[in-house]
């Protein structure tokens, strides 16, 4: 596992969704609903981070982290980084997740240059349940 860069400041924006439980619902003609639950763990939690007006060096460190993590299909950890700062400890528990969910990049980060040496970066993650 690789830690998200600690040199990157606290995000400007952060949105989190805890994901769903794997299940299928059947609704009979009389309206009775039957749920078949396939597992006890949530899956596909999402986390989207926005970093506004950070330095190009900080933006590059995010891209390097993306390369280092995705090139070997590794996971990203946020514990001890600025990603979860500004949130209460009870919320941080969800944001940094933990076993069995593992954060991975759901897509490449997007870097937008806005000024000399200044960039906006957005990156999104999905928490996955790996097969044993």
């Amino acid at each position, binding site marked *: 596992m690789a830690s998200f860069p600690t040199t990157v*400041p*606290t*995000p*400007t*924006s*952060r949105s989190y969704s805890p994901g769903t439980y794997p299940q299928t619902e059947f609704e009979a003609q009389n309206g009775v609903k039957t749920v078949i639950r396939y597992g006890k763990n949530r899956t596909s939690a999402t986390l989207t981070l926005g970093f*506004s*007006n*950070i330095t190009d060096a900080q933006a590059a460190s995010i891209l390097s982290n993306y390369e280092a993590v995705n090139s070997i299909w590794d996971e990203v950890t946020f514990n001890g980084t*600025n990603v979860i*700062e*500004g*949130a209460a400890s009870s919320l941080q528990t969800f944001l940094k997740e933990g076993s069995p969910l593992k954060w991975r990049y759901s897509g490449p980060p997007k870097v937008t240059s*806005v*000024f000399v040496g*200044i960039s906006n970066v957005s990156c999104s993650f999905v928490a996955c349940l790996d097969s044993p």
Partner: protein
Amino acid sequence: MPFYSGKDGQLFIDGTQAAKVQSWSFSSSQAVLETTSLEDTDRTIVAGVRSYSGSARLFYYQASAGSGGDVTTLINKCIKAGTGAGDGTAADSSAATLKLKVIDGSANGRFITFSTLITGISMNSSVGEVLSADISFEANGAPTEVSI
């Protein structure tokens, strides 16, 4: 003399002192980029782009009939005649180097110089008033001289 008034002001257009200037002004603005993050209680910023603009009022003055003057010079910077009615491809506007100066008794005075594009000119001829022109400009890039 620590205080200055309009009689101490001068305007230079492309290096030549303009005659019959009633007023000049300029303003500078600094754009900011917000860096406030989720754990902050107060807004934080870093510097962005700077920009400069200004205006001047000049009497429409000619040293001799038909000779044109400083207002003509400035008009010719931003208003270009076409070759005929409906001509949509007249010449591009020209840059003007404007030096805004205060005479303070020193050898060179206090001044700031911009390379500008004239963004607006208005003239109004009416009974009982001396013909004058109001111009507005925006600077292209940083001032070329700052000693004001």
